[in-house]
């Protein structure tokens, strides 16, 4: 499934995450999945939220630089080797590079949900679909 991700540029300063999360909480936006990529000077906070458009408005109003892009979200069995066999191996076989991925905070029992960005999103989608069928 295609899903929208909101990435936010956050300077590496104490309190900056508070500034970022406060408007989201105030707008009653639920964070479904989250990952942080960091360098020495800055972080990129990547979010999957309940209402991306509302989140973008709230973050823009708070003065943040952000970007919205599409990722794939995919359910994997919550068992040893589940991620490997259902996502990582099939993509590697199809010659598709995973740029990054991370997991949802909550999932239904026995399943885990990951969101991923691949070098070729259409190709990744096709490769994973083939596997399901």
């Amino acid at each position: 499934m295609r899903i929208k991700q909101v990435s936010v540029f956050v300077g590496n300063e104490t309190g900056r995450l508070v500034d970022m999360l406060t408007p989201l909480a105030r707008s009653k936006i639920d964070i479904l999945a989250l990952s942080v990529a960091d360098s020495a000077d800055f972080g990129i906070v990547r979010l999957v939220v309940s209402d991306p458009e509302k989140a973008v408005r709230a973050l823009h109003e708070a003065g943040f630089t952000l970007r919205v892009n599409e990722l794939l979200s995919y359910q994997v069995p919550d068992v040893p080797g589940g991620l490997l066999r259902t996502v990582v191996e099939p993509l590697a076989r199809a010659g598709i590079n995973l740029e990054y991925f991370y997991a949802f905070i909550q999932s239904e029992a026995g399943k885990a949900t990951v969101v991923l960005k691949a070098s070729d999103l259409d190709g990744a989608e096709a490769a994973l679909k083939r596997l399901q069928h």
Partner: protein
Amino acid sequence: MWQPQYEMMPRPELARLQLERLRHQVKHAYSKVPFYRAKFQEAGITPDDIKSLEDVVRLPFTSKSDFRDNYPFGLMAGPLSEVVRVHASSGTTGKPIIAPYSAGDIDTWANLIARNLVSAGVHKGDVIQNVYSYGLFTGGLGYHYGAEKLGATVIPASVGNTKRQLMLIQDLGTTVLTSTPSYALVLAETAQEMGIDLIASQLRVAILGAEPWTEKMRLEIEAKVGISAIDNYGLTELIGPGVSCECQYKQGMHIWEDHFLPEIVDPASGQPLPYGKQGELVLTTLTKEALPVIRFRTHDLVTLHPEKCACGRTFVRMSKVCGRTDDMLIIRGVNVFPTQIESALLSVEGVAPHYQIIVDREHHLDRIEIQVEVSEAVFSDEVRGLEEMEDRVRAEINSVLGISARIKLVEPRSIARTEGKARHVIDRREL
């Protein structure tokens, strides 16, 4: 003294010599350099109008941009075939300042540097390790020729390779160091780390310059290396080092006034200011052959003191440079204007013109950090994308300025703006 007949000349006699040389120099510039002739004509003045030293104020100023606009040889007096050497300054918008020298200029220059050396307490028999960079920069070859003129032993070490510098100091019995003050401190600290006692070495004197430094730094260098640290001043446009130098009394730098006519002017109005008042230093060459320079605005803020010095020299003493009238920064001896950084930034695709330059000194070496605001146009959800942008900016700055800067991406609007305008430079060095 190297040339006591000049260095101790009574001031009335000096004034007569200066006037004679000024008239000759102005005539030389007027007849050989179309740029000066046009400027003089525009100001309605001819060389014959210079009847007294005070008349110098009637001559038009020359600025750094005149050098740039007439790049490379437009300000040269006479043909290139009379030029035996060309030096160049570092770090101007793409094109450097070009300084041609005739054989006569090289000889004058060597004598002026020999004056610097003797004034600092150096003599024949000394071993001079010249740690100024050799090449286009005037410091290396300038000091080299002056030291040879004096008859001292020169070690043309140039800058860098600190451990080898320390080895040479110890093994060759170096007594005199010529370098930038910051590099002198790097030498001192590396020696400390390696367990080398420089105080026990033969080193006696260091002649330091090419960048601003403080009295505090002087005391630190003197204590750590066990030497007397002497300040000196010069500019590529005028000759390089050899414009002024401290004597052993360290009460300001004696300007070699028989070769350079100093004035202090109000930086805003350009009107002359009396001795003792701080203002912008304006210099006119009196004896240059290949590159006569009339009333050059240095943008350096100094004070001149004419009182006779205990050393016996009659030449005026200039204070350390207390500041600049423009926004030029000197970073590791390289002249940098914020506008150059701005145009380098803007040439990188996607970079917004919001930036801040932070200059600091870390372990005695200047460090420059450029903070650039990230716009949504360039923001990427991948660290790699942003780091690639940092690399592109760094490479561009390096190719334009020849210095490496740290690039830091910051959030939009995080750079403080005063009255809508960002404050572009924060200099945290204690200069």
